[in-house]
């Protein structure tokens, strides 16, 4: 259904910088279509990031986050070969998880 995320996780020293791009409309619910009808809100509400299976960050998002969202965070105590996974859940119950290996 939804397109995969792009997750880049790069280690430098014992820190891993993770950059995530998610494919999502992030519709605010404030816009109208050409016919003047309100386009219903459709946006990612929750994001969870795990490092080797352990949750390291959760986030609650509102409709102010830009379309095709970008998220960057830094994991402490990571190394090449570790797994970083990100899950998002939207307000319509849509959900997606993708995983990347730290390089």
């Amino acid at each position: 259904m939804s397109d995969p995320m792009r997750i880049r996780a790069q280690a430098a020293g014992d820190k891993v910088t993770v950059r995530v791009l998610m494919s999502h409309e992030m519709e605010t619910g404030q816009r109208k279509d050409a016919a003047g009808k309100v386009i219903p809100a459709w946006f990612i509400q929750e994001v969870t990031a795990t490092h080797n299976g352990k949750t390291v960050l959760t986030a609650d998002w509102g409709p102010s986050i830009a379309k095709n969202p970008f998220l960057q965070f830094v994991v402490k105590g990571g190394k090449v070969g570790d797994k970083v996974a990100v899950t998002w859940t939207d307000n319509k119950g849509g959900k997606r998880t993708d995983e990347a290996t730290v390089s």
Partner: protein
Amino acid sequence: MQTRREMLARSATVAGLLAGAGFLPLSAMAAWPQAAFDSKNMADAVKALGGGAPVESKDVSVSGPDIAENGAVVPVGCATTLPGVKRLLLLVEKNPSVLAAVFNVTDAVEANLNTRVKMGQSSNVFAVAMMNDGKVFFAAKEIKVTLGGCGG
């Protein structure tokens, strides 16, 4: 009388305390904080998340461009150098939905998050740090949004 907002705020606080103490996995904090996202200003949003009055602090920073070529995508970041941070918030003062993001951080990540927000017009952007001890600090930055392109 207890309003729905206060109730939600209280339950969020309790859940936060439990999670902080290791009683609950973070993912069980689940419930999306509707009241906070419905808030019309920073103080209300922080209150809805169980925090006190925010105090401006040099130890919190908000990053972003001075001018955004397009308000549809504005790169912003929030960070703090203070130990013991529980949550980092990003808010756009003049957006219909002022609260953009709540980051529940753990010791395993740096208190330095970057994302991109929409901005309907030039506005202050706030980064807020909610601490484990209940204190709340913030930083502000004005970002100008310009009109671009042919405009048709």
